[in-house]
């Protein structure tokens, strides 16, 4: 120990009278200060060494919680990866009305499919139910969003019969007919007969376009015409079947379209 004597013992401190003086504060203050310094030191030491690092990181929580959260498995793959194999559908969708839809909106969560394409197959929805989730009329939906009444819009028919889900557009009647017969075209657009060409039932001479009133298109002239699809013997699977020759109360007295409106035939 150095033998530096500082005789500024202004407090007349008896204990340190002939030793060197540490400072000018009274003894009891120094002791308290030391105790405090030691306590503070201990607190800091505990904070730095005794508390596990995961508790110190970013405040009060444990980083292990973040790791647990990160370990959570994903279910959705995102649609970019789909284009690796299904580029045709992907490109088609990209330019259509459904361009904002991720593939998994309709096909369901499919991360498993991207990892094991053969093991796990995503849904291939072909029921009306799925489309109706978004496209059923609801007054709360934004104006302009395409909505239908599923009970009136071609009932029971799967939507994909007429609409390609990857590029959904309303089926179009020929422009040349719609120009004058827009009313019929609109009615037809929600009916099961929508996929039929106008000329399937109406034999239309070219002059009809020039002289629409004097040269008229034809209409089915007998029951057998409708019977091509609707007779019990027909191979057309999706058409309702009846016995064409004996159907109705008056037998063969009337043609089909005299009772049934062919542009929107009722379903039952």
């Amino acid at each position, binding site marked *: 120990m150095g033998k530096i004597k500082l005789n500024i013992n202004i407090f007349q401190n008896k204990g340190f009278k002939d*030793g060197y003086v540490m400072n000018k504060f009274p003894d009891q203050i*120094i*002791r308290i200060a*030391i105790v405090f*310094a*030691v306590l*503070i*030191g201990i607190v*800091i*030491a505990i904070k*730095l060494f005794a508390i596990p690092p995961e508790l110190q990181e*970013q*405040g*009060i*929580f*444990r980083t*292990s*919680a*973040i790791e*647990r*959260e*990160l*370990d*959570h*498995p*994903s*279910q*959705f793959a*995102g*649609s970019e990866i789909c284009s690796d194999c299904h580029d045709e559908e992907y490109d088609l969708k990209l330019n259509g009305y*459904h361009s*904002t*839809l*991720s593939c*998994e*909106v309709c096909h*369901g*969560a499919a991360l498993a499919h991207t990892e094991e394409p053969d093991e796990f197959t995503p849904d291939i929805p072909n029921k009306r139910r799925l489309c109706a*989730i*978004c496209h059923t009329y*609801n*007054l*709360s*939906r*934004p104006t302009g*969003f395409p909505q239908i009444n599923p009970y009136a819009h071609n009932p029971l028919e799967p939507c994909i019969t007429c609409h390609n889900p990857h590029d959904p557009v309303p089926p179009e009647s020929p422009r040349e007919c719609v120009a004058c017969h827009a009313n019929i075209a609109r009615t037809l657009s929600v009916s099961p007969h929508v996929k039929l060409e106008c000329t399937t039932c109406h034999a239309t001479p070219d002059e009809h376009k020039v002289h629409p009133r004097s040269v008229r298109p034809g209409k089915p002239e007998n029951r057998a015409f409708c019977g091509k699809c609707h007779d019990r013997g027909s191979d057309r699977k999706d058409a309702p079947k009846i016995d064409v020759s004996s159907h109705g109360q008056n037998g063969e007295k009337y043609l089909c379209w005299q009772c049934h409106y062919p542009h929107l035939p009722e379903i039952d």
Partner: protein
Amino acid sequence: MKRINFIKLLSKSAIVIATGNLFGTVLHAATKSVSVTISHVKRYALGIQIEKCIGCGNCVLACKTENDVPKEPFYFRTWVERYLIKKNDDVVVQSIEGGAGKLSTEMEEKDILRSFFVPKLCNHCEKPPCAQVCPVGATFKTEEGIVLVDEKRCIGCSYCIQACPYGARYMHPEKHIADKCTLCFHRIKSGGIPACVEICPTQARVFGDLESKASPLIRLKRMKKIHVLKPELNTEPKVFYTDLDGEVK
């Protein structure tokens, strides 16, 4: 040892420890600030365009699939509310199965003045009331500003469920912890987007980083009129709504 010597030793060691600690703390802070400047810290948030929401409920189902939320229709991390504002200014709010259920209108259509859907989820507040009330510190905010729950710490006391002004939390029936939206933390940290954003057919939900000028969310905030839910509570929510009606609470 003399008392004086002991005290001297004590005071010296205290000084040594204190300087050591100070040095360590400074060093720690320095490395931290360096790492902050190198990797830019992201601040994730969500935008919701009410005018685009068609109320299909796909987001609700996608969230349940992605995050193992119980399938029963009482537990939601995100849900869709349907607002019906009548001509006599009555407001009816429906959320049938969180918006994924079949919607029905029992009132006459002519009584309704306007109607729209409002998707809701945790607002990931800058000042989360749920984190403040948690007695065990289980709810915390990550450096990205996402409010998470530590499953191992949560004791299931439900204080946070009471405290959340947005009703964004629920008691998990099996885990018995307060569960909530994580903004699909596991997805976004690996560069993805939340499942609800991924699945929204009209892209009503916009996910992005508030610190990046190129993020779609910043673009949304620049182009649209933005509002948040219950701004008067000073929670500073980070779910930004466009076209938000004044009746939405």
